[in-house]
């Protein structure tokens, strides 16, 4: 064995990995872990908050809609449906709201260092995804243990719906984060759109309660509604108030799915188009 004496006061450089993909994946990982960690440091309960928040929302919505307004009556499994929907919704809204600032809030990095800019958006989404993955796992394990889940062959589609949710969130994040650099009003606009989506997607009530077929068709075109309804249908026992989106809006189901994919494509194109202007505009 040879021992190479370290010349004092020098630091040998490291050869970067050849694969740019590997570097980018690593940077996404470091950035998302950092923001995940930072989000919860300094508070006594730390990560638990990201679980408490959807649970509180669930509690309040359950109280208001199920107990006071008796919205889900006749549907004994409605609480589980509500819980699954709220966890998915929380991911959607937090991920898009955080992503909004992923470019604009990192002006320092963008003006002073080179790296593919989409990494900032993907890292922001990944960080939200981390919370979402933990919450979903917890909710699914607990509800399964309590016997509230109804796992059948149709449950095999569940990963696909989660995937669709991620594609939708990523597409919107790319779109929102790049546009926000130039139109700061977007932050407020998106808050309002989110509120409309929250009620328009039947997060807190069974989708079947929409009586008019026209309204149902219209609301069903929105990918958030479709994803949430299909998740409920795939995981919880079907009832008069819990149907698959296909049975509600028929062939129109293609639209929300296509819309998710299209939004991703549009987000990607818009982001790429605007990328060269980031450094100068921030």
């Amino acid at each position, binding site marked *: 064995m040879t021992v190479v004496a370290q010349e004092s*006061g*020098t*630091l040998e*450089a*490291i*050869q*970067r*990995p050849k694969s740019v993909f*590997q*570097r980018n994946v*690593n*940077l996404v*990982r*470091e*950035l998302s872990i*950092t923001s995940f*960690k*930072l989000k919860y*440091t*300094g508070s006594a309960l730390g990560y638990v908050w990201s679980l408490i928040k959807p649970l509180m929302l669930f509690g309040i919505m359950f109280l208001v809609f199920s107990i006071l307004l008796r919205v889900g009556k006749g549907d004994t499994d409605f609480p589980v449906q509500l819980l699954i929907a709220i966890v998915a919704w929380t991911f959607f809204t937090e991920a898009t709201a955080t992503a909004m600032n992923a470019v604009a809030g990192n002006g*320092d*990095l*963008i*003006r*002073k*260092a*080179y*790296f593919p800019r989409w990494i900032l958006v993907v890292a922001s989404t990944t960080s939200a995804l981390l919370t979402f993955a933990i919450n979903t796992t917890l909710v699914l394990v607990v509800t399964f243990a309590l016997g509230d889940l109804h796992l059948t062959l149709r449950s095999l589609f569940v990963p696909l719906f989660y995937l669709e949710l991620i594609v939708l969130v990523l597409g919107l994040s790319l779109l929102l984060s790049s546009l926000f650099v*130039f*139109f*700061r*009003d977007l932050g407020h*606009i998106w808050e309002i759109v989110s509120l409309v989506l929250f009620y328009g997607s039947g997060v807190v009530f069974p989708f079947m309660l929409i009586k008019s077929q026209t309204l149902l068709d219209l609301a069903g075109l929105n990918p958030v509604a479709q994803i949430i309804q299909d998740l409920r249908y795939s995981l919880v026992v079907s009832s008069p108030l819990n149907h698959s989106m296909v049975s509600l809006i028929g062939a129109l189901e293609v639209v929300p799915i296509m819309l998710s994919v299209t939004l991703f494509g549009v987000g990607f194109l818009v982001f790429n188009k605007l990328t*060269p202007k980031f*450094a*100068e505009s921030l």
Partner: protein
Amino acid sequence: MNPVVEVSHLRKRFRLPLDKSNTLKYRVTHLRSSSRYRDLVALNDVSFDIPSGQFLGIAGPNGCGKSTLLKILCRIYKADSGYARVNGEFSAFLELGVGFNPELTARENIFLGGAMLGLTRAQLRDKVDEVLAFAELEEFAEQKLKNFSSGMQVRLAFSVAILGQTDLLVMDEVLAVGDASFQEKCFDTFNRYKREGKTIVLVSHNLGSLEEYCDRVLLLNQGAIVADGPAAEVIPTYHRMVADHALAVERDLPVELSRADPRRSPAVGFVSVGLLNGSGQNTRRFDTGSEMTLDMNLQVHRTVGDFVCGVAIRRADGLLLSGTNTLLDNVTISGLLAGDTVSVRYTIDSLPLLAGGYLVQVSVHDVGGSDIYDWIDPAATFHINDLGDGHQGLIELRGRWQVDETEDVLVRSARQ
């Protein structure tokens, strides 16, 4: 062999909006006035190559396009036309510690900063202790960055920045901070890079370091290359340009306050820096031989021990003419409590400077010199009037002439 850097017909123009137009309300209410822009040509048809192993300096007055060129090289800005191509890996030192997070520990920041350079966690894991040792921060590995002094932060940032194996090193003059022993380490590193035949681009105001290190200097002015060649040939051109440029300072341009690190709130910070003439009036114009007082007001934000206030006077191009501080002149500024204010005055009875534009740089730091509390460069600019008396150069040495004429009595009487 291919040049490491190829720059061809590079053009870059910035459109500076005259109004803040990124809100919806503005867009709606000013539909027709979308053309309220001022164009600023930052680079105008710049072309050059850098062969492998060359140490290239880029010089030029403020606003000449140096930074824009650097940012295009580093792919931060996109050129309007033309291209800048780097063949190989590059490391950019535009600012140290980009991507660092003050809430993370030194160790975590090494992983984060390393990832910004393209290095993976697995590669860095074996290297962390070595980096900490090089930065002389072994004992602080688990401390949060926000608790570090600025000197410690710079050391860590520099140590991470040099980690990436690279073919081209692009540097802005960022390294003039930190304590002396660390500066030495920085220069050792750069000398090593130079010995190893790395290609280096250095942007600097400091003619001394350009002359010392660079094989070739590019002089930029108003977005174009005005001189290109060995340092010894280009620097006189630069001097001439600066002399012309110094006249611009005469127009009493607003002083640009550039702080060492705006993110840190200093323990002691400058509130105002003014220049007074012999009658105590604020002015920016002085005559050679007149009295000048630098009037500095400081605010103590955090309780501190004894500290030192420093003053430097530079020529408009950055050449240091004189620098001193309270410690060197045996003046004590004793420790103060948060909330106290201090007035420090530095008076030059008779200015020895000749006509031209000058800059004043001020700083406050601890007695050891490792903690820079505040640093403003330039804090003020002033101009020495041209009295038209024909004196040449930078300073009036106030030498005395003495002429002794001895009459040769014999010759004189013979002529008569």
